[in-house]
């Protein structure tokens, strides 16, 4: 059986043109996907797996009982992850956090959390990837490497895409890459500006000064000649539709949200001259959905705490790395994420010191230290749902094969019902 127009849930591109061949409930071929997307479909777990408690296989009701006991006995439980599950499950996770008085945070806090803080300071212009495909004639990629991390972005939405006002594709666009090292993306650019590590804020401030016509008393900033920056500013002012895509090179570098706020200020000022916009390169398939779902459920996009019976927001206080590294979380529910692999060691170690529950299709590194492991179906392969693309456009994920496992949403429902029974 051939399933067409399948949405790949690997990264924030959410490519929606994937073709999947299925025989006897097994995926035999994946067409149009990048290597990461193809591997996501071909390596998706299809074997039945039982939940485990302390490494021993148990039935689902027993596993849910243990998980609920851990969560209800904890004084400060943490719910974390959310970026590789569907928004329907994210909504349930937020309801559970509300019920428990827990802290809830998504992987946003360690990728584009600083972007959100920057947006809260400065505001942001928005547009869809479709508008960029059809209109943008100047593309700047700052501190990101889509040729490796978002492999079909260039072909589907940006550099190579042929749009209504950009019928020539690549030759109708000027491409600029700003990065600390040459990358596969910079090798495809017309202009590569190699900035010294840690000088992004200075570079953005210089672009703003040049845009305002100020004279500078230096010849170079962050390793880049001012003449090159003056040339970039002229290109930015005179383009028809410009966009700066940015990634971890901006959000993880010293200054973090201040870098993003400076970038957003530059964008606002450029709009006095022409149409200019910006977009964070979102990593996980539904990390943008985690921000959206948390925002429409609580008013806040990440790092939310329900201990007082209403949502409070404070990055640094209620973000996952902080509550783990400070030893405040005394139990954790990790959903569709692997913080043991991706958190600083001090924060990751805390997850093996407290009772941790994992909902995930994979036996990842966090599952290996968890007290309770609840194996679930994989959204976009063996479970349907909704995911938000990096431009915050929601897309329907298809179920292309059946799974013996329940979905994250179902398991969270079971936990919520049991918690309600316990507290009744």
């Amino acid at each position, binding site marked *: 059986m051939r399933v067409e127009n399948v949405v790949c849930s690997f990264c924030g591109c959410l490519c929606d043109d994937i073709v999947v061949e299925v025989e006897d409930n097994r995926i035999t071929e994946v067409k149009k996907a990048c290597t990461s997307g193809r591997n996501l479909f071909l390596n998706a777990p299809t074997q039945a797996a039982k939940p485990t408690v302390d490494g021993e296989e148990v039935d689902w009701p027993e596993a849910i009982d243990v998980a609920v006991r851990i969560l209800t006995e904890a004084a400060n439980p943490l719910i974390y992850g959310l970026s590789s599950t569907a928004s329907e499950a994210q909504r349930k996770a937020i309801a559970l956090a509300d019920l428990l008085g827990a802290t809830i945070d998504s992987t946003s806090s360690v990728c584009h959390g600083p972007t959100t803080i920057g947006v809260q300071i400065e505001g942001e212009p928005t547009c869809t990837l479709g508008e960029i495909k059809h209109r943008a004639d100047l593309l700047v990629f700052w501190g990101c490497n889509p040729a490796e991390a978002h492999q079909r972005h260039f072909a589907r939405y940006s550099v190579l895409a042929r749009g209504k006002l950009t019928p020539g594709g690549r030759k109708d666009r000027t491409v600029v890459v700003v990065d600390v*090292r040459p990358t596969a993306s910079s090798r495809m650019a017309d202009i590569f500006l190699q900035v010294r*590590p840690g000088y992004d804020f200075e570079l953005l401030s210089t672009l703003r000064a040049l845009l305002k016509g100020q004279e500078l008393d230096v010849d170079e900033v962050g390793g880049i000649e001012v003449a090159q920056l003056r040339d970039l500013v002229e290109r930015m002012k005179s383009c028809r539709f410009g966009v700066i895509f940015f990634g971890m090179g901006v959000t*993880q*570098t010293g200054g973090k*949200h201040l870098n993003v706020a400076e970038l957003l200020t530059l964008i606002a000022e450029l709009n006095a001259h022409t149409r200019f916009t910006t977009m964070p390169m979102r990593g996980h398939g539904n990390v943008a959905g985690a921000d959206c779902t948390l925002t429409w459920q609580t008013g806040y996009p990440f790092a939310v705490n329900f201990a007082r019976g209403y949502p409070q927001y404070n*990055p640094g206080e209620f973000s996952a790395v902080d509550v783990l590294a400070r030893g405040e979380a005394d139990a954790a529910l990790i959903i569709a994420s692997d913080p043991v*692999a991706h958190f*600083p060691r001090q924060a990751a170690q805390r997850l093996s010191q407290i009772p941790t529950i994992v909902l995930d299709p994979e036996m990842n590194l966090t599952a290996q230290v968890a007290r309770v492991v609840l194996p679930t179906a994989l959204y976009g392969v063996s479970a349907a749902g909704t995911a938000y693309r990096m431009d915050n456009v929601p897309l329907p994920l298809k179920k292309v094969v059946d799974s013996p496992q329940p979905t994250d949403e179902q398991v969270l429902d079971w936990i919520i019902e049991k918690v309600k029974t316990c507290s009744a």
Partner: protein
Amino acid sequence: MSEFILITGRTAKQGAALSRGKDSTAYRQATGFVEMSREDIERLGVEGGQRVRLCTAFGEVELELREGDVPPGVLFVPLGPAANALIPADTQGTGMPGSKGLAVEVKPL
């Protein structure tokens, strides 16, 4: 021993190996190396393929050294458990650890 600036990031091979499992050989190979410029390799008298220890104030890991297209004084490690063992848990009130621009020492093994 010599001090460098550490940057971390995604690579195509790291992304492709993710769904093969983090215990897989493909994932370990995709995340278990550090890239250094030719100038620094010659300056330190080390060779591509040898093991080196990377140390920060927050942790240390052993990795395979590779020559890479990075500026002198900068090291690149793909996103993964090795890179994250080196970074600080202090988020400076943002939730985001300092994953880029970290001072790191290299000790040839």
